[in-house]
């Protein structure tokens, strides 16, 4: 704990898919949930609902949709914290992919705009979670809001998220297809390798087979990987994830690579069977926990 009386709290959204243990470890870290809508069912976004989500998805005749958290939900988190005199840094899903940032900003304006900073991570899922966790560590170490904001920007700009959907259908129907639109016209079975650029879905490459797609992902790994946080992601695609994990670990000289699961909102837009790769540069320790200059 630092000398300052002001604590900084970190708020992120459910698409970070933070496991319970992480939330327990960082009491300064809070999550606001998005929502998934089926024709006859509404479901809160979160890993605990993943199984029922997948069941519903396969059974549902019509596509599912998602919605950002209403500003009210953000306000319910912001208000008590601000009233206790704290400051807030919110790290949220790319504004290209969701209106969550807009909702959060509206809540911030109502509750106390000078105390709350909303950051469009231009990411989602694991890399965004990584940024949120680094921010939470920094908050716990007593860093100032300014320092935490700088840290978040630093991490987000050096994070990359690649993924291979099983089909482009979900992205297309959900409207988040972005640059992959160009691949829709292909009459041939193609495995697209997508990534986020400035918060938008773009095409990194296209190949014919799954194994080549994985090889292509592995090519993105940095040569000197020590300074990077690397993880394999998937959504109802454990087999693929494990295969990719094997390839990545081999390339990294045996280093253990975690497998991270993504949840319902992502599943709605990417579809089951998707797998991906996260490559995030680790911030210098000084930015996260080494001392602090509180003015």
């Amino acid at each position: 704990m630092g000398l300052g009386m002001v604590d900084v709290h970190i708020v992120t959204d459910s698409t970070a898919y933070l496991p319970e243990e992480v939330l327990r470890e960082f009491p300064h870290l809070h999550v606001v949930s998005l929502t998934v809508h089926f024709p006859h069912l509404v479901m809160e976004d979160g890993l605990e609902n993943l199984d029922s989500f997948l069941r519903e998805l396969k059974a549902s005749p019509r596509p599912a949709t998602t919605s950002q958290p209403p500003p009210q939900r953000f306000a319910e988190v912001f208000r008590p914290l601000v009233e206790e005199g704290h400051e807030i840094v919110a790290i949220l899903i790319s504004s290209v992919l969701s209106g969550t940032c807009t909702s959060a900003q509206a809540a911030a304006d109502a509750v106390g705009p000078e105390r709350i900073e909303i950051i469009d991570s231009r990411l989602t899922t694991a890399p965004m979670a990584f940024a949120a966790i680094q921010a939470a560590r920094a908050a716990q170490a007593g860093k100032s809001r300014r320092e935490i904001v700088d840290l978040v920007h630093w991490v987000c700009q050096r994070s990359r998220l690649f993924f291979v959907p099983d089909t482009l259908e979900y992205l297309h129907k959900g409207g988040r297809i972005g640059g992959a639109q160009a691949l829709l016209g292909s009459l041939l079975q193609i495995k697209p390798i997508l990534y986020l650029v400035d918060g938008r879905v773009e095409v990194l490459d296209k190949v014919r087979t799954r194994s080549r797609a994985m090889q292509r992902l592995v090519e993105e790994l940095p040569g000197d990987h020590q300074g990077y946080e690397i993880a394999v992601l998937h959504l109802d695609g454990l087999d693929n994830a494990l295969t990719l994990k094997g390839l990545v670990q081999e390339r990294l000289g045996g280093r253990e690579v975690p497998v991270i699961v993504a949840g319902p909102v992502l599943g709605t837009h990417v579809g089951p069977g998707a797998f991906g790769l996260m490559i995030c540069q680790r911030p210098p320790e000084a930015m996260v926990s080494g001392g602090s200059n509180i003015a």
Partner: protein
Amino acid sequence: MVFSAYSCLEQQREAINQLNVFPVPDGDTGTNLVLTLEGVIQRLKTVSSRSLSQVAEIVARESLLGARGNSGVILSEMLRGWARGLAGKEWANTRELARAFRYGIVYAYRAVTKPVEGTILSVAREIARGTKEAIRRGIDFPSLLETAIQVGEGALARTPEQLPILKRAGVVDAGAKGLLTFLQGCREGLKNGGIMAIAPKPEKQMAPTPAWSEADTRLRYKYCTEVLVDRQSGGSRRSGRSLPKDWRKQLEKAGDSLVLIEDKDLLKIHIHTNHPGRILEAALQCGDLLQVKVDHMGRQHQQLLQQWEEGRLAPAAPEPMHPEKATALVAVAPGPGIAKVFRSLGVDATVPVGAFANVGVGELLQAIKEVAAKEVVVFPNDANNLLAAREAAQLAQGKEVKIIPTVNVAQCLSALVAYAPDQPASENWARMQVYQNATYGEITRAAKDANLGGWQICKGDFLGLGSEKILAVGRELAITAQELLKRLILPQHETLTIFCGQEAGESDRAWLADWVHKAFPQIEVELIDGGQQAYPFLFCLE
């Protein structure tokens, strides 16, 4: 000895004879050589010039544009060599003719970067070698030609020794045979002098498959012309009377397959001709024209028309229709469905192909000219189109043409998927080299009985080809396809694209796809209607 230009003209026209006596066993080569010369003949018929160099130049240009298939290109190179040797001359003596002849052989040899022994090239080379001495001695041209033919026949007989596959099949190389036949024809022409009558009796030609001879007949007379005439309306030939003999003769001379149906009011003329205008004029003599229909019968042209109607092929307008981009892609497509897939992957222009024939230099050149880009990448998609593609590349002025030497559709797909339009050309060049990784298989029909690679083949059998070998033979399409796939599919394959041709029925397609699903669950299968004529199934494996 001085040869008049006229005599040389006859020599060139002699090639017409080739249309009747081509004894090549492989329908493909035969078609290619005939078609290559077709354009030349048509053009020559319209020319009355006596100038040797002018005739030579026409021959050179037309044969190049019409060049089809490897052998076609090689023959056209030979003719171009002759033309080069005769350039600027009004007439030529023996020495000059002989020299021109030598040029022809050299050009033919140079046309191919990887000359293979036991083919048309080694025969050409033998001829060049064997006639060197004769030329030096300055013998007359007919004797020179005779020598050349003798040497050539000897070399031809040796080709089975040089190419084991020929020996196994019990044939001599088709291209080489074609060259010999051409020279023999020239000899006949010289002997008989005078203009050879064109006797279009397609059914008398060797034993090609029906599709082959059909294509040949149609292309001799391009336009199916039908006219419906109102005899009551007058015209210089009064109605009510039967049509005069000389009027009928006039029509007969203009083409073939003439059918006249008449009653006292109406007259219907149906004819295959190269001068529909003349038919219309003749019809006008009988009365007002009620209905006129003129169709280009060539398959390529029909496919072009289809593509036009689908709105996909830009008309040959002087200005490019699309905004210019850095690089355009041109691919040869064996079927309209395949062409569609290519275009969905970013190909800008597809060049259709006839039943067995390959594409001509002219067609490739046209596609290259039409696409709106300074750099063009060409996918020949058949070993037999490689030379034509190179020729077209050289002819395309103002454009930089690169060729990815794909020899089948599977390689083309692989390259196209790797192509990234937003990358620089050099990057794409490297990326597209993956084309070599694709595995290809095809089902075709045997045109005649044969004994090849240990297989006893009967005419009409389905042949499964892959890895440049015959891997399956059978009477049943689906079973043969199954056998072929069993031998082609490897554990690392993950995707199979099946292009179904016109001959593949619904049940066969479904049965085959089903079987692959069950036998190879790790493979994703896609069935696409390729619309190709000659191959019921084309397989692309990766």
